[in-house]
């Protein structure tokens, strides 16, 4: 068993409920490697919504809140405001964050509150059996789009950048080393960090959405259809840009802004 599992994973709860080959386990390892590298296990709490990816932190040996569908962000904001000195990490999914939780993403990012949000995007609603999600590609045949999805899909990173997130990155499960580094940077960044991970759902999405059933093939597909973005470059047509998409260190974090205002008006907290 992986050396970090003893310290970070509740091994009595294993095996995880994830299907064989599910990308969630890869994100799980990347997250605990990042936390281990920074040494912040005791400063950390995790909040998640409802969905397959929201089960990732439930196996962690940390304080974890497994909340309501789409509402992980307001729970995390309340927790952060109660203990601004500690760290909060949010695990959410494409349905949880972009559909029902879209409004909360808008406002949490707008505030630039110090959270690290990992959006695990498998382009489907996996937990409920394979219905389409806001990021499902156009034309994909799913349980609720039997004639092909008619919606134009939503890009979570574009949305996060547009509404004010100050650290935005996108990687895939085929890039575990870069993903770990991005999570580290997101945790260190003081502000709203948004890291999207493109992942495979071999069972519910698999053939119908990606065109492959085998998890390794899906990961290979991700490797081939993505392009690591560097400042100023042009992304080849048809490829998804990944990498560090935005890193704004100048915008002040929300709680710092409140404290500055109160202090400037002579209000001493406590």
């Amino acid at each position, binding site marked *: 068993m992986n050396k970090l599992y003893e310290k970070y994973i509740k091994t009595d709860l294993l095996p995880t409920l994830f299907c064989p080959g599910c990308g969630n386990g890869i994100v799980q390892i990347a997250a605990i490697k990042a936390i281990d590298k920074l040494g912040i296990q005791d400063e950390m709490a995790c909040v998640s919504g409802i969905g397959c990816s929201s089960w990732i932190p*439930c196996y962690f040996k940390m304080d974890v809140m497994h*909340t309501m569908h789409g509402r992980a962000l307001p729970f995390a904001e309340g927790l952060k405001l*109660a*203990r601004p000195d500690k760290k909060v990490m949010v695990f959410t999914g494409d349905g949880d964050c972009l559909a029902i939780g879209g409004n909360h993403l808008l406002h949490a990012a707008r505030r630039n509150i110090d959270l690290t949000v990992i959006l695990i995007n498998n382009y489907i609603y996996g937990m409920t059996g394979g219905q389409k999600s806001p990021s499902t590609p156009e034309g994909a045949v799913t349980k609720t789009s039997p004639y092909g999805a008619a919606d134009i899909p939503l890009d979570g990173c574009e949305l996060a950048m547009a509404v004010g997130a100050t650290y935005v990155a996108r990687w895939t499960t085929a890039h575990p080393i870069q993903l770990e580094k991005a999570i580290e940077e997101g945790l260190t960044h003081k502000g709203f960090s948004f890291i999207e991970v493109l992942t495979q759902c071999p069972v519910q999405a698999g053939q119908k959405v990606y065109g492959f059933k085998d998890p390794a093939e899906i990961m290979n597909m991700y490797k081939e259809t993505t392009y690591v973005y560097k400042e100023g470059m042009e992304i080849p047509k048809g490829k998804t840009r990944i990498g560090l998409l935005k890193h704004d260190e100048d915008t002040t974090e929300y709680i710092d802004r409140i404290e500055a205002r109160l202090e400037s008006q002579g209000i001493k907290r406590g």
Partner: protein
Amino acid sequence: MELNFKDSKQSVLQGNEACAKGAIYAGCRFFAGYPITPSTEIIELLSRDLQQVGGAFIQMEDEIASACAIIGARWGGKKAMTATSGPGYTLMQEAIGYAAVTETPVVIVNVQRGGPSTGQPTLSSQQDIYQARYGSHGDYEIIVLAPSSVQEMYDFTVRAFELSEQFRTPVILLADEVVGHMREKITLEGGFKNIPGGRRKQVVSPQADFYQGEKSLVEGQLHDESGKRIGHMAKDSGEFIYNINKKITDNIDLITDIETYFLEDADIAIVAYGSVARPAHKAIKLARGIRDERIRTKFKFLKTVFRKGVPAAINTDYSHLKVGLIKINTVWPFPEDELKRLAKDIDLVIVPEMNMGKYCREVERVLKDKKVISMPKCGGDIHTPSELLDRILKEVGVNE
């Protein structure tokens, strides 16, 4: 601006203001809310005062986010509250169920207005009495307090925090626009009350606040002591449901708070809660012939000028009417045994409410062998003492 929290003092405050001050006194140090008439004064006052005592305040994007944020904050160790009215209260239901299942102590204030839907933003009602108890899906018990005066808005808010911590449950303060917006004399306590928060003991899953090194798992699915889900196991799930319900119902004696007036020799009783208890109290006094001299003098003058239209009550002395008031402060869990005991020698019970007659059904169910009459009144006007007295007179067969 330096706010003085040190000394106890008397003041004249609005009901909503008193609620906010009660929260600060009780140790509330987190408020997340969304403005909605007629509860907006609470959020406004707390936005100013809470941050001055080291608390955190945030206006969230909607009521759903507000209810979620207060639960998150409580797990961060800060006592938390939100305030809303009808439409916002409906939005919070999922979060209230979540707080009940995860046993998170939070206080939610519903300053009721006319419903349904957008309804009557500036007028009062008691239409949410059932929703306060049964609003969320699933089987859970919850504690609901109904204040009827500005002092009670203050005291009951403090009590709400105490009960929520003691029983690890969300507690609803079910006010209404009348009591939220009225202004009355109030005595405020000095300093801050120390209400111990802490571990759940008498309930299903003992877990500590976050960041104490205890690695708590807060889970919305039915769960065991460690937070591990048990929803797929019927027997354990059934026990979980029984336990979180029994947690409240087994301790109903510690929760129930009912005040009675002139009940000792009464054959007729008014059962009232919330702001309706005020005119009910006045009606009892009129019936018993206990006159307020100031009003008597005023009406005596009017009597000589306008013979018609003066309420019958002022004309006649009804001090032979044996009427009493049962004022229920903790409307849920429904105080069955206590009500049966208090109404033992009563023959006729009148239940005035500013709704279609909802709480009356509970009273009827429990006082099966008595004559129970519902006095519903919708539209926003509160029952007047004369209306109530006239109904009493009608029932005992006294003509004008």
